[in-house]
């Protein structure tokens, strides 16, 4: 395949990945990696390097909008970034020593888990019980605008959230994805944030987390300009268009169709990983 044909195919594929990833809430990274590896025969190390770059582009782009709306809790983001950046570097270093087949198997499992999470109905666990000493010490309790009225919320189980974030960061660094699904669990279910705050704050942290592991991948030679270029351009444009459409579209059915497709891809990744195809 020539460079030109490859670039064009990846551009289109990355656009679709970004578009569907943003419509379904799954993110572009988890789709672009199977496309590159299963579809185009690209080594998974290059696919992960390119994907992590696209995660920085999309999360940073949308974080800009969220921050302005005052939904992001910068202190929670900053505090948990200690966990996610340490995890991200840890994951990127583990990836060096781990057989590519195992990486593919772990990737497939996370893919299935994440697509199931997009189907689950979101429940708001937010609370006004100011009982956490950690939350008070780190000044994590906050407020956010609900229909123009500043509404306060309390944060719980800071240590539990921190460790879950360490895990999310490790997977992000290992697999080159944003691991948004795990971050939302840490913030929604464990720390009990209102989900508007958790979604935007997790998005805000994603860029920094991905930057930490991207640096390791850069030094490892996994960020190839010929792949990363069409991937990040395509995913970013796709995600931007997706975010515009999302406001108007009903995505329930799309999410189900997409979860099925993603699960098939995931099973293929796991099978190929176990049978030594990577």
């Amino acid at each position: 395949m020539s460079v030109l044909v490859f670039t064009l195919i990846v551009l289109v594929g990355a656009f679709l990945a970004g578009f569907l990833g943003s419509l379904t809430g799954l993110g572009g990274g988890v789709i672009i990696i199977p496309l590159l590896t299963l579809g185009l025969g690209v080594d998974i190390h290059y696919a992960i390097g390119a994907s992590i770059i696209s995660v920085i582009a999309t999360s940073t782009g949308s974080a800009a909008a969220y921050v302005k709306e005052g939904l992001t809790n910068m202190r929670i983001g900053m505090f948990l970034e200690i966990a996610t950046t340490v995890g991200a570097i840890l994951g990127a270093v583990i990836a060096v020593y781990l057989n590519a087949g195992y990486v593919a198997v772990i990737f497939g499992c996370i893919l299935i888990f994440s697509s199931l999470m997009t189907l689950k109905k979101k429940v708001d666990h937010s609370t006004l019980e100011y009982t956490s000493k950690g939350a008070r010490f780190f000044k994590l309790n906050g407020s956010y605008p609900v229909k123009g009225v500043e509404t306060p919320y309390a944060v719980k189980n800071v240590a539990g959230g921190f460790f879950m974030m360490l895990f999310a960061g490790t997977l992000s660094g290992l697999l080159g994805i944003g691991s948004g699904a795990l971050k939302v669990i840490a913030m929604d279910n464990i720390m009990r944030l209102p989900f508007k705050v958790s979604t935007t704050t997790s998005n805000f942290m994603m860029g920094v987390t991905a930057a930490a592991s991207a640096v390791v991948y850069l030094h490892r030679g996994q960020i190839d300009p010929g792949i990363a270029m069409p991937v990040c351009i395509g995913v970013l444009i796709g995600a931007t268009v997706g975010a515009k459409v999302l406001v108007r579209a009903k995505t329930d059915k799309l999410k189900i169709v997409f979860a099925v497709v993603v699960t098939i891809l995931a099973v293929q990744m796991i099978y190929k990983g176990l049978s030594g195809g990577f």
Partner: protein
Amino acid sequence: MEQTKNITDKDIQSLVGNLLRAGVYLSMAIVVLGGIIYLLDHSAEKIDYAVFDFNKVSLKTVEAIFSEVLTFKGAAVVQFGLLMLIFTPIARVLMAVISFFVEKDYLYVLIGLIVLSIIMVSLSGGFAH
């Protein structure tokens, strides 16, 4: 007291939002430019990504990318744009540290500096081998 604090927080958030957006646009523009140069020079070549090779990509460090970018070779310009993109969220942490300092929230100055130093150690290549 409370009122002035709210205003600073809002101002900071708006500033941070603008910085993030400008960083993404600028770095993507550089990537697109590099991509066009890259395609003009290499479009007919065969791709070779089937097996990962540590030595295939030559532009792996900040120093290498900075010294090569002025040759205006496509790959170098793309890597430079990608590096700018990587720096954007890192610059965001730096700005947050400064704004916490202005607010005299020294606990969060410290937390931000911890995050920055984790990334800096990684950037110096400390974890790559």
